[in-house]
């Protein structure tokens, strides 16, 4: 692992319990020091941490693409924090309840200065077990936050019945089947489950999601944000797959919130692992396929208005 500073992005709709989680993280005796980027001062009651205010300024990049955005304030803040390197172990960015997580996540890929000094550890989303169903109906931001999450803190479970809890979890799974879900009351979760996840580290995709290559169960809900996944029970041809995936995210980038894949390239002993945010893809050859392991290829898209049949057909055409 590099000496890049890990950054955890904390999202969640208003009142879900973000600040409770943040205070919990900061007050636990873990011996680590955090730089915390918040939108409003006063919410965080911890005074031995480095706390910085942010204003969530989003910049469109000038490539004519509406989904390629970065957070200008985040670039500026990280640049400033890096001058005081050594004074903290990790950065936590708390976004407002109404923020779209995409520009935050993209900043870590699109800004060279930020990506050379920090790495996105995970997007952690806190949701309210009692009110998430309502928010998914009326707040697109809440849906995006669930779709972007690597870790979901399903909070306030004491305020709902077992049936209601199961229903809300099914709703989360329909949008995002791969996030790690923790059921909590008052955001009570082991901080090792929240920090140091390396969820954006390609090498750890399989470690964190051992079931990734297993056949998933399909949920059919009428959510407009949905996940779709496709499997080829063998190798794919990189000469077909790479141009296709690149063109797909160029064209469908605004609709694809997150993408992930683990692929067996013909003649290649290593797995090809990729993940992306909107149009931005990050992929590399990582670990070897194990002896005796079934070489297969799987991709997942989380997004809006995804044409399942067309995507499946196009992916299957990449088979080697």
């Amino acid at each position, binding site marked *: 692992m590099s000496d890049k500073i890990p950054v955890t992005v904390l999202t969640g709709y208003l009142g879900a319990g973000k600040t409770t989680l943040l205070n919990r993280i900061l007050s636990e005796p873990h011996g680590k020091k955090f730089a915390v980027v918040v939108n409003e*001062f006063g919410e965080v009651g911890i005074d031995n941490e480095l706390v*910085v*205010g942010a*204003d969530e*300024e989003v*910049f*469109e*990049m*000038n490539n004519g693409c509406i989904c390629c955005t*970065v957070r*200008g*304030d985040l*670039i*500026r*803040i990280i640049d*400033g924090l890096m*001058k*005081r*390197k050594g004074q903290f172990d990790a950065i936590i960015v708390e976004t407002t309840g109404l923020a779209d997580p995409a520009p935050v996540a993209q900043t870590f890929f699109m*800004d*060279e*200065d930020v990506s050379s000094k920090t790495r996105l550890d995970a997007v952690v989303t806190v949701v309210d077990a009692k009110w998430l169903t309502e928010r998914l109906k009326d707040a697109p931001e809440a849906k995006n936050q669930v779709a972007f999450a690597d870790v979901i803190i399903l909070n306030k479970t004491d305020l709902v019945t077992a049936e209601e809890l199961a229903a809300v979890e099914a709703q989360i799974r329909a949008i995002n089947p791969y996030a790690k879900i923790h059921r909590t009351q008052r955001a009570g979760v082991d901080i090792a489950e929240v920090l140091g996840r390396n969820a954006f580290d390609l090498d750890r995709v399989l470690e964190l999601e051992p079931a990734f290559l297993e056949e998933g169960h399909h949920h059919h809900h009428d959510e407009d944000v949905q996940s779709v996944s496709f499997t080829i029970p063998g190798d794919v041809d990189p000469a077909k797959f790479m141009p296709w995936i690149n063109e797909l995210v160029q064209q469908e980038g605004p609709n694809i919130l997150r993408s992930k894949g683990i692929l067996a390239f013909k003649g290649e002993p290593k797995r090809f692992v990729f993940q992306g945010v909107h149009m931005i893809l990050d992929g590399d050859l990582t670990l070897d396929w194990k002896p005796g392991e079934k070489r297969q290829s799987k991709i997942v898209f989380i997004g809006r208005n995804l044409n399942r049949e067309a995507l499946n057909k196009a992916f299957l055409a990449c088979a080697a």
Partner: protein
Amino acid sequence: MTVAPSQSLTEHVVAVEAGAHVIGAGWLGSKAAFALADGHLLLTDGSEHTRVAAHPGGGILVSAHAGKTIVTGGDDGRVVATAADGSTRECGKEPGRWIDALASGRDGAIAWSAGKAVRTLDGKGQMRSFTAPTTAQGLAFMPKGYRLAVAHYNGVTLWFPNTDAKPDVFAWKGSHLSVTVSPDGQYAVTAMQENALHGWRLSDRKDMRMSGYPSKTRSLSWSHDGNWLATSGAEAAIVWPFDKQGPMGRAPRECGVRPVRVARVAFHPRALVLASAYDDGTILLIRLTDASELLVQDATGSPITALAWNDTGRSLAFGDEAGNGGLFTLPS
């Protein structure tokens, strides 16, 4: 291609242990001042050092030379002027915020910004405020008259602090990170988020686009005659011609080509000689007339973050990310 400098001047450098990431450097008479990320200012003539706690408990983010002081802006929200004798004076305070940008002008005038709030303080102590349309990321005083250029998202605003005249907006889409104005006041040039410069000829508002950089440009320096603008961000100092009709349709000079990116540039105050400092710590002097190169410092491994000539051009102060500094004096 690496061109070996024809001559080395490394024995004319006195090392200065700065002790923290050097944010900026400047000269107060015979003393060099290093603004440090740990909140201190280090004043030194090469043999005697004084450390001044300009921002106790905080860190310095930006610095500028203003009259007989070095002005610093910190993550403690304070703007502090430090004189050669080590005395400090608080010029401004933005509670709970960071000072994002700082500029100095004639007669010791200064300007700073925190988020959208922009303030100027003239030599008589008169403060004025202006709210930029988005975060003010770069500031520069115009050389003539008391007027400030403010770089922000989607353009630059020119503002007269002492009049009620409406601020003049020069629009260009994208995020403008810093701004500089040519010594004759004819051009404003910004460094952008997207590895390019943008400029305006102010008289007729004509746009200029200067692109092709592999990374962001962090350092801009005008030659003493105003005919050249040197820039960092490429594996050479990129020097644009601003004589006659400006750089439109003309190619820049590429000076000091090395396989490492230029981090800081500083034109000599009296001659067409450019100090070019690299991400690996190397510093070269390049004579523009014949492209000859002199080595000031060999690679140290740490990017140079500050570079400043004194008024006479005899001495150059420099510092790096790892907290190493140095004073170079031209042999007589």
